[in-house]
């Protein structure tokens, strides 16, 4: 009890911390957010390995490693503190990998990683400053610049990697989206894509496509986990899904046979991964809930327009990029006024014109 009588002293010089309020904070950090995104993408990675075997794993490792490499190189060259530890480069790499075909050659992964990390992110000032989703930019640039390798798909061979099926490694002709587009207007052919049999395969992922496009189920699991963990809000994905459903339904009513039904559009292509993991990228999406809804509706409409009438079979990355460009405007338009805001308060909150220059 001697200490109790002793004089209270401050800790030695320089260890007492002075900072502005608040003095407590949540345990959350950028690193933790990024880690959760990676963890929730693991089902999708596993699914892609199940369907495409080691090809998928190869692409994932390439993309993640190259992205990390470019992030590191940038930090070294720009003489800034290494930002590798916030894991954002790995998230970008992983999402990029899920956006490409399992047969993507290594040099294309390298180019994609360069575009994603350097061109789309670091030159804008790094994490948090980029107006466009890095993975989407990289995918679009790769698609436009190297159409051949980017549209060389592979037939799924479920479980082949574990010896449960014959290894085929066959080069497939097209993704369901491209195939359906090729027969657009032919009602009989289109009907196949509305059959439960096909939709079930598309839901599980037993179709050709890029790593993350195949298994809607795996992405759904990850996406719901992401929402449950409160990393993202459900507004953007929901708005996208509802818009696509309604839009395709109306198009089907207006001209039957032009395109398969809403479920087909939801389950194939990049809608799932785009809606849960790319459109919800915090940096490039609106901050308000209402803005998120507008953002999602925009993506939904653009995806449908491109898929149904455009020359590309898939428009998710394009739609995300276009809506990314609109985010600053959406943020401006969709912001509600502060609590208790009233026209009469304008004099207090805002300077009268001419009062402050």
């Amino acid at each position, binding site marked *: 009890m001697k200490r109790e009588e002793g004089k209270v002293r401050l800790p030695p010089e320089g260890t007492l911390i002075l900072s502005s309020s608040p003095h407590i904070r949540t345990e959350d950090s950028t690193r933790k957010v990024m880690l959760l995104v990676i963890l929730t993408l693991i089902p999708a990675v596993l699914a892609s390995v199940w369907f495409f075997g080691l090809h998928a794993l190869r692409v994932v490792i390439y993309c993640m490693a190259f992205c990390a490499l470019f992030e590191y190189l940038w930090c070294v060259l720009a003489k800034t503190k290494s930002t590798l530890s916030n894991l954002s480069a790995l998230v970008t790499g992983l999402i990029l990998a899920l956006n490409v075909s399992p047969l993507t050659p290594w040099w294309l992964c390298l180019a994609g990683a360069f575009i994603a990390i350097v061109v789309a992110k670091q030159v804008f000032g790094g994490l948090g400053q980029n107006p466009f989703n890095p993975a989407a930019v990289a995918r679009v640039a790769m698609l436009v610049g190297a159409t051949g390798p980017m549209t060389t798909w592979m037939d799924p061979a479920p479980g082949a990697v574990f010896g449960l099926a014959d290894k085929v490694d066959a080069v497939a002709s097209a993704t369901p989206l491209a195939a359906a587009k090729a027969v657009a207007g032919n009602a009989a052919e289109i009907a196949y894509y509305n059959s439960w049999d096909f939709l079930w395969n598309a839901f599980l992922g037993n179709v050709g496509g890029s790593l993350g496009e195949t298994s809607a189920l795996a992405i759904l699991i990850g996406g719901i986990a992401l929402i449950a963990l409160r990393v993202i809000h459900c507004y953007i994905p929901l708005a996208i899904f509802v818009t696509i459903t309604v839009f395709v339904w109306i198009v089907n009513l207006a001209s039957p046979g032009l395109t398969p039904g809403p479920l087909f559009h939801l389950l194939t292509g990049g809608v799932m991964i785009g809606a849960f993991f790319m459109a919800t990228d915090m940096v490039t999406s609106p901050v308000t809930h209402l803005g998120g809804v507008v953002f999602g509706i925009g993506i939904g409409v653009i995806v449908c327009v491109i898929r149904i009438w455009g020359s590309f079979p898939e428009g998710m990355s*394009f739609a995300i990029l276009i809506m990314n460009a609109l985010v600053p405007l959406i943020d401006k338009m969709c912001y509600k006024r502060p609590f208790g805001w009233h026209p009469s308060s304008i004099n207090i909150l805002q300077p009268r014109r001419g009062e402050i220059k």
Partner: protein
Amino acid sequence: MPSSEWLLITVGAVLVNNIVLSRILGICPFLGVSKKIKTALGMAGAVIFVMGIASFATSVLYHLMLSAKISIRIGSFQIQDLDIAFTKILIFIVVIAGLVQIVEILLQKFSPALYGALGIYLPLITTNCAVLGAAELNAASGRSILASTVYGICSGVGFGLALILFASIRERLELSRIPKMFQGTAIALITAGILALAFMGFSGLVK
């Protein structure tokens, strides 16, 4: 003309063949007057106005030129039935330059603030290839006077859309920590490039 044709002209000019992002015309004011949404709006208005009027005027002239055959006789010097359509670029430039001068004078009189904000870029509309491009494209695709005017206005709207989008992004970029060597035009060009990439998604909508 059927209504679907009008839709094609509109959508085509605004989105698919966007004069800036797809045809890469009018980059100078696109990069120059896109720092603030407010001035971008003014510039967009000015360009829509100029493009509409220029498209109309050039289209009228072009149609006149197509129908006019000139015969001149000065002494022994004689020209018979000369088709003067080949002078269209020359005439278009003169007409556009003149129009812009008048717009500039009017603007200085009636909206000095906007005039100040647009600065050098207003006279530059004179030599803006977007305006001339619209006029040329009209002539090349043989549109009627009305269709030309609509196309001109829609191209202006497309330009305005791209400009405002770009300005909103640049307003945001102004708040970010862009590495020194990429500041200014460098980052603007990169952004414009990505924006153009994004707009490529619309290709094929209008055949």
